[in-house]
Every structure is written in C-alpha cells, then in structure tokens.
C-alpha cells in the first residue's frame, strides 16, 4: 500500500483582518495535509480562526498569504459545500427546494435532482417536511436541511462549521450520529469545526488543535476508534476519557498562554 495522496494541501496560510487602525492576525502559518476520505476536525477556543480557515477553503475569503490545493477526482463534482454555523437554510425556499439548491444551480437533469434530493430527505428524516418552509421547523430540523443540502450536492469535500453548536444536548447527540451514519456511506473528505472536545473525539479520524491570537496549529491527535461509532460507546471507553483530559490540558495551556501574551497588534 502506498502512502495516500493528500486531498487538501494547505501551505502557510495566514489571514489578517483590518478593523479601523487595528489589524488582527486571525491565522498564522497554517500548514496542513488532509487525506482523501479523512474526517479532520479543527478544535480550538472560539476566536482562534476556525471559521476563517474554513471560509478560505470555501472560497468565501482570500488568504493574506499562502495557498491551498484541493485534488479533484471528478470534474463534474463541485469542489466543496459548506454547512454553516448559522445553518443558512434559505427561508423563502421549502425544505425540498433548499436541499435541491446546489443541484438546481448546476442545472442537473430534473430526474437526478429529484432522486438525490429525495434520497437525502429520507436519510435525514425530512421527507414528511419536504413541502414546509423553514420557519415551521425546529433548530435541529433546520440543521438537518443544511446537512442534507451539502450531502446532496455531492462535492469533493465537505466543510462543516460547528453544525451542532446551537442545538440542545439531546438533539446534538442524535444529529451527530446521523451525520456519521450518512458520512460513512461515501466517506467524503470532511473538514469539521468544533469547540467541543467530546464532539471532536466522536467524529474525527484526526483532531487538529488550534490556539488563539494568532490562530495557529499547535498539535494533532489521531483517533483510531473503529467505526461506526456511537455517542454511548465513546462515553464508556476509558481510553477516551484519557484522551479527553490530554486534549483538555493542551487547550487549557493554550488559553492561559494566550491570555497572558495577547496584545492587539497595532498596524
């Protein structure tokens, strides 16, 4: 077996934001390789630039320095689809129209659009709600729409920005498992963001730890648990408790460090 090629190669990416006379170094020297089919999580305190990095990968923001490459396997497929933190389900489209959004924009044959939309509506348990508008859905249901929309678009890679951060515990566990179940069918490359250590351990093949001010990669952890995984199984695994504490300590040090070092840079 040869070493798997990198699906995403991120080289020395930095991002500076300018606010009035201040400049904020949101990301510094981010270098990262992600294998094809790998589920990688960026884990770090809020404000450490996770969203910024994901938005750069999503083409919504330009890096101030550095670059990234995504190796395409199929010219027909879109490069990436993002699941936004605020879910971004479009209120003037029905659930079904939202899920079909990317497919329709690509002008795929109606039959294919319908098939794939229905498939993912079914997978996310949204079929009974297909004709409803998002205002009639709960937060968890809306996030399902957002997930179904991204998967239905069938991109080369999936970007997920804290998709479950706004949900209550119960819904969060349910959706985490649903997400893993859907993902395991095709094992697309995923860059996932969270600030929850538990969530990172549950979903990831690899966790990339980040620190804030400036946002940097400080460590990596491989999670070699067999899949499919469940919330229950992870919770009862003593090795995982150990891992949790390790990551916790690491982040703790980073947060403490950042607090004593942090001075806004004048530009």
């Amino acid at each position, binding site marked *: 077996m040869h070493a798997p090629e990198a699906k995403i190669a991120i080289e020395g990416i930095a991002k500076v934001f300018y606010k009035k006379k201040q400049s904020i170094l949101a990301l510094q020297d981010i270098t990262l390789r992600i294998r094809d089919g790998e589920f990688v999580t960026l884990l770090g305190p809020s404000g450490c630039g996770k969203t910024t990095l994901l938005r750069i990968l999503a*083409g919504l923001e330009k890096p101030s320095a550095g670059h990234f490459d995504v190796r395409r396997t199929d010219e027909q497929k879109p490069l990436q*689809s993002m699941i*936004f933190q605020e879910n*971004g389900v*479009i209120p*003037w*489209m029905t659930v079904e129209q939202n899920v079909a959004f990317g497919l329709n*924009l690509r002008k795929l044959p109606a039959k294919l659009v319908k098939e794939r939309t229905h498939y993912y509506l079914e997978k996310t348990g949204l079929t009974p709600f297909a004709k409803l508008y998002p*205002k009639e859905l709960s937060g968890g249901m809306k996030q399902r729409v957002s997930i179904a929309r991204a998967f239905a678009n069938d991109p080369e890679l999936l970007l997920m920005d804290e998709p479950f951060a706004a949900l209550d515990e119960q819904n969060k566990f349910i959706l985490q498992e649903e997400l893993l179940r859907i993902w395991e069918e095709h094992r697309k490359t995923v860059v996932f963001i969270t600030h929850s250590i538990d969530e990172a351990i549950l979903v990831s093949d690899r966790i990339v730890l980040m620190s804030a001010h400036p946002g940097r990669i400080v460590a990596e952890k491989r999670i070699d648990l067999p899949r499919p995984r469940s919330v229950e199984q992870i919770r009862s695994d003593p090795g995982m408790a150990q891992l949790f504490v390790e990551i916790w300590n690491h982040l703790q040090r980073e947060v403490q460090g950042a607090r004593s070092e942090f001075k806004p840079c004048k530009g």
Partner: protein
Amino acid sequence: MKDGFARPHDEESALREWKSKRRARIVQQTLTGASPVFLLAVWELLSRTELIDSRFFPAPTSIVGTFFDMIASGEMLSHVSISLLRIAAGFLLGTVPAVMLGLMMGMYRPMKAFFSPLLMALMPIPTLALMPIIVILFGIGEGSKIVTIAGSVFFPVVINTAAGVANIDRIYIDVAKNYGASPKAFFFKIALPGALPVMMEGIQMGQAIALLTIVAAEMIGAREGIGYLIWSSYKLFLFEPMYVGLILISFFGYMFSLLLRWLKNRLVPWQ
C-alpha cells in the same frame, strides 16, 4: 384524593374563564359594528331636523339615494372606470421601474452611490407640485395624470426595494456563493425573493399615495374621474355627489389594501 376534588373545580373555573372571554369578545365586536351605525344615525337625525345644515351635510339616506341614481345613469361607471384606469396605469408605470432600479441599487454599490443622492433630493418634492411641469412635458391629457401617479408611487417602492435587498442576511449571500450561484441565479433566487417582504411594504405605501394623488390630480385638470366628481360637485354646491365621491375613495382604498394583502400572502408564503 386531592385530585378528585381539584379536577371538577378546575374545569368549572376554566369554563367560567372561557365564557367571560367570549362575552368580552362579543361586546367588542358589537362596539366595532355599532360605531359607524351610530354615527350615521346621529347624522341622519341632525340633518333631518336641520340641527346641522342639510345643504352641507345631507342625510346619509339621501346620499345613498344619489349613489344609486348615479349607478343607474351610468355616471358612476364612467368616473370610476377612468380613475381606476389611471391608477392602474400610473401604478404600473411607477412600480415596475422602481422595482428594477431598487434591485440594482441593492445589488450593486456603484448604482446605489450614483442614484441615492438623486432620489434623496427628489423624494421630498410632492409630485403634485411638479404637475405644471408634468403637464408641459406630457400634455393635459391622460399622460400627465398617469405620470403624476407613477411619480408618486415610484419613490417609496424604489427605496423599500433597495433597502429590502440590502437587508438580506449575509449568510444567504454566502450560501449562494458557496453553492456556485451565477449572477442571474443570485438575482432570481436570493435578491428578488429576499427583498420581497420589504418591497411589498413599499408597494402598499405606494398604493395609498396613488389614491391621494389621483384625487388631487383629477381636481386640477380633468373632465372625469372620482377626484373630478368631488371637486365639480363641490363647486356647484351639489353635496350629495361629493359625498358619493368620498365614499368611493374610501371603498377603493380599502379594496386595494385587501388586494395587496392578498397578493403579499401569495408572494411571501414563507413569512
């Protein structure tokens, strides 16, 4: 056994509460229905007994009589139809370009930068004050009346449409970009539907202004129409037909707002 006691008691008090709420609602509905009837009855009485001058305040029954006479003679139809035609034409002539310009201004900053000062300078001028110029440009015929209405409808619609686009949440713009929307798709799937609720508010405002404008415009230079009916009757001291004109305005104002509300519910089912 506390439960056994509590339940019938609760049901009883719930029933009592429901009854008293229903009573309050019936009283309110009666009051709402009674107020115009009461006003008309007092008016009728005062007018009949000449406690108020019946030349200026003719009895409601005699106004209603004139109303039906005018329907029978066909006079009503000619006034109403010409006014409605002017409103419809002026409304369309004002709304369509306003929506287009508003969407452009909302979507493209340079458009907004260029047109905003012009709009801000022109908006405070009542279109009626421009009527002499409009008449010079468009003649004293139908053209000038339609343009006057169009002009007064234009401003609230263009401003609300631009604001409607500008207020679309950034997240939907990011979603559209992320999913590869072309400029055309962005326009039809995000900008237009996203702006629609605020735009409809502008159109509702425009409708109210159109009605004000038509009456005034027809008072100034017209031979037919509801505004002309009001003004010419007044000048001839014929107060019954003048009140008929006022009733027509009130009626159509109400109908238009119902129509637009219905349209809004059709166009914005997602709110």
